[in-house]
């Protein structure tokens, strides 16, 4: 940027002094630009269905939570039980909410103390995130348990260049305010990035206000995220990642009429940490990566009595940890053949306590879940072969040996072929995945639930085939993918009349199939239009019904326009079609929720060299809708803020 300014000046200087060109000043020549592609596999060579959300996308849309950018991803459905901070789940390609493995810098963040070992996106801010990758389709071969529907990979920003500091603040509807401080930089020896932020909102009522719930459920969240790297030698990299999240959320007792609960609160503290070393040997032909990860959750739900609930109170706490050690080797035999070999050790542990008190002490429960742990050893290999530069195939195989159910083999084949004359890419994948039973499913023995140590893992098998076409110097890009997934041995509960408790068994079966279409057009350099549409057909194979909360139709339209080289405007529209949900009163009946369209508009402008202002309107047309039956959603909301950066 600076250069563009300097250069004409330099030339003008030359012109003015054409007669005496050798004045004291030194001419600056045009910059030479040396470009290279990154060494990571380019997206265009990946056969899997992947959506990448970049930091730029996040900055353009200005979301506070990661979940807000995920809503527009094809094949991914998001539901939240109320406003900011309330329990949030996703369904990837029709799979269950517990069927997505979420990684933050390689740390598995699915909560081991959660009965389904799912990840709650409620507390995850966009702070310091460089990239979010959503990989659809069964993916256990690379990542192990839980990747039945797919994998979401969140990557923290790596600092580079001169030290940079940014301070930003934002405020708006629902008494929301947010402050953020970022620091980053790097040189030959070290790199660092650090972001600390605080988010606070008085929120909306989690239980929908149309049922007369008026008590607002607030949320506050503190996040510290850092990445620190050392590069002491040309072939040695050491990286340290840490993300700490602490949040307090007001909850409502249940959805629908009378759901309001003024003093039901949820407190959560999580730590995702990883240290990773990378060593390049044999002239970069042999890459080794050794990593240690820690996931730590402490969750607490406190509900005291209040005038509306003079007798009901509860207190539950859960603590869980996941330790992981992984060692991976990449062998770059030739540029056309990359062989990957690795091993992993994982130990998950959890403990908990839960007490519920009611008017009739007969119902009271007092359970504790003593510390239980399970170990898994895994080994995997993958070979990537590239023929004629354009035909790429990977074969992967993995064995996971779980302490209770034993070994499980998964595999995956992917292929992609670029037909250069027309710029058409055809790609396909076939893979299998599994999800180990959770600690609760295996070992819980509480008043109402009895675990089953003989459970088998849930499993899935899926394939997809896709076409990608680019036109007009890649300014137009279109893609279409068809997918099918089959889920078996899904774990569900039944009421046992021998134990008088709910017990688990591998009973359910389901399948999902559908089509994902995307289009992106860049008619001008500063205007990008993109659209995606997903059709998902799911079936519970025991009942023949569509699975709950998965819309058949979903689309997203986005326009991003950069103006005057210093401003940006982003218009985002998403539509979610009608879908079934559990009826509020009779739980084994369903209710169809209506379709909805939400429009968001975000604008940012560089007011001065160091000052950027931004503002956005969420739900511009004040659409009244429900994501989960009986829970509220925010109406029209506006936010403005500013960022100072040096």
């Amino acid at each position: 940027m600076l250069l563009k300014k300097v250069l004409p000046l330099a030339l003008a200087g030359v012109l003015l002094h054409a007669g005496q060109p050798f004045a004291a000043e030194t001419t600056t020549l045009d910059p030479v630009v040396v470009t290279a592609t990154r060494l990571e596999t380019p997206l265009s060579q990946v056969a899997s269905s992947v959506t990448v959300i970049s930091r730029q996308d996040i900055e353009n849309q200005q979301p506070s939570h990661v979940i807000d950018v995920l809503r527009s991803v094809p094949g991914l459905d998001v539901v939240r039980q109320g406003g900011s901070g309330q329990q949030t789940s996703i369904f990837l390609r029709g799979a269950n909410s517990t069927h997505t493995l979420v990684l933050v810098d390689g740390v598995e963040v699915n909560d081991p103390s959660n009965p389904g070992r799912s990840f709650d996106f409620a507390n995850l801010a966009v702070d310091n995130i460089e990239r979010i990758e959503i990989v659809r389709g069964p993916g256990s071969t690379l990542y192990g348990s839980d990747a039945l529907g797919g994998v979401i990979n969140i990557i923290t920003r790596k600092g580079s260049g001169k030290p940079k500091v940014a301070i930003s603040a934002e405020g708006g509807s629902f008494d929301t305010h947010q402050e953020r401080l970022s620091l980053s930089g790097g040189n030959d020896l070290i790199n660092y990035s650090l972001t600390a932020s605080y988010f606070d909102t008085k929120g909306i009522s989690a239980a929908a206000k149309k049922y007369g719930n008026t008590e607002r459920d607030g949320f506050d969240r503190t996040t510290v995220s850092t990445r620190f790297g050392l590069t002491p030698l040309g072939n040695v990299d050491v990286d340290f990642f840490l993300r700490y999240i602490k949040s307090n959320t007001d909850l409502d007792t249940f959805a629908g009429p009378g759901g309001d609960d003024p003093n039901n609160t949820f407190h959560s503290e999580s730590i995702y940490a990883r240290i990773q070393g990378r060593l390049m040997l044999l002239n970069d032909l042999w890459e080794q990566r050794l990593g240690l990860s820690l996931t730590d959750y402490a969750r607490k739900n406190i509900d005291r009595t209040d005038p509306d609930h003079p007798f009901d109170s509860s207190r539950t706490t859960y603590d869980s940890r996941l330790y992981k050690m992984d060692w991976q080797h990449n062998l770059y035999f030739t540029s056309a053949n990359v062989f990957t070999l690795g091993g992993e050790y994982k130990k998950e542990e959890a403990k908990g306590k839960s007490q519920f008190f009611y008017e009739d002490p007969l119902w009271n429960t007092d359970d504790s879940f003593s510390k239980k742990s399970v170990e898994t050893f895994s080994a995997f290999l993958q070979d990537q072969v590239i023929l004629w530069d354009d035909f790429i195939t990977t074969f992967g195989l993995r064995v996971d040996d779980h302490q209770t159910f034993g070994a499980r083999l998964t595999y995956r084949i992917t292929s992609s072929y670029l037909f250069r004359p027309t710029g058409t890419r055809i790609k396909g994948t076939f893979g299998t995945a599994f999800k180990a039973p959770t600690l609760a499913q295996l070992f819980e023995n509480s008043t109402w639930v009895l675990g089953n140590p003989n459970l088998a893992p849930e499993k899935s098998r899926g394939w997809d085939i896709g076409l990608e076409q680019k036109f007009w110097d890649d300014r137009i890009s279109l893609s279409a993918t068809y997918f099918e997934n089959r889920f078996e041995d899904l774990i569900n509960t039944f009421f046992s009349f021998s134990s008088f408790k709910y017990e688990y068994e591998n009973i359910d079966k389901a399948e999902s199939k559908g089509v994902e279409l995307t289009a992106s057009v860049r008619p001008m350099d500063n205007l990008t239009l993109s659209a995606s549409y997903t059709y998902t057909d799911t079936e519970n194979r025991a009942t023949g019904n569509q699975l709950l909360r998965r819309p058949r139709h979903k689309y997203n339209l986005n326009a991003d326009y950069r103006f005057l080289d210093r401003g940006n405007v982003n218009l985002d529209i998403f539509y979610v079609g009608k879908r079934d949900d559990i009826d509020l009163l009779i739980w084994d009946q369903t209710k169809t929720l209506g379709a909805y369209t939400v429009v968001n508009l975000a604008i940012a402008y560089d007011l001065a060299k160091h000052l950027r202002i931004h503002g956005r309107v969420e739900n511009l047309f004040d659409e009244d809708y429900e994501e989960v039956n009986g829970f509220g959603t925010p109406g029209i909301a506006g936010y403005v803020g500013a960022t100072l950066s040096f």
Partner: protein
Amino acid sequence: MLPFRRIGRREGISGAGLPDKGTTRDMPTPHIAFSLWMFLSVCIHVAMLTFWPLPAPWELGKPTILMVELYPPGESDGNQPEAREGSPAGTPTPSTRPLPEKNHSQPPVPRKRTTEAVSNRKDILPRGKTGPAVDQKAPDTLYRPAMDGSGEVSGGTAPASESANAPLSSLGDGPGTSSISGNGQPGTETGHGENGRGSYRASPLGYGSATQIPYPKTARRRGWQGEVLLKVAVTADGTVATIQIEKSSGYDMLDQSAREAVALWIFRPARRNGQPIADTVLVPVRFELQNGL
């Protein structure tokens, strides 16, 4: 209400409908999808192998252009870019390109010259990005940057008669002494020396791919990017006398890569009243990584 059905924080929002218990577990035909996929895969492979145009075989009797790239001994330290293998476009090859300049401080004056060799050479080298092609007869000209087709940045637009007395004027002779990175359009004068007095600043003979500043592999792996500003003292015969890092990119590795490569550049020497003289110029070198889409 049964207490255990409270919607608490523990349960994920599952969404699997509750199935009827006791339903017979009719096993699906699990391998149909796989078989279908395999069949499709085989079909695609067969089709590719049958119809994909393979490179034409060598034809005897036709002159063949061998593209050879040589690197000076000091550089073959393993950080060599893959360009060395002459990898075709599309593979991650570091390439050097001139930055198109948007703000012309004066209207460009089209020149007819720009050496006819430019158009000739274009025929020889099918792809400008394949790195420098070197005529085996003139290996010593290896590191001489090419006359750049785009002209704007090259400064290689002096009339042939003028450059005739420059020591490197022979560069333009003979096919294949350098590669063409630009689009082969007639060059335009940047302004230096256009006044007929034959006075202009030193400028590189071209920013074509012949300049070949390697992007060190380690830097690529680590995602290092940045811009280094080099202060280059150019002698009257166009060679580099001294070279200093005026402003670092923040990464020593990138600075050194640029410094070592630019030290081997040959410049079109500065002139005063037609006489080549020594000069000092600033050369910005910007290292950029692309996502390889």
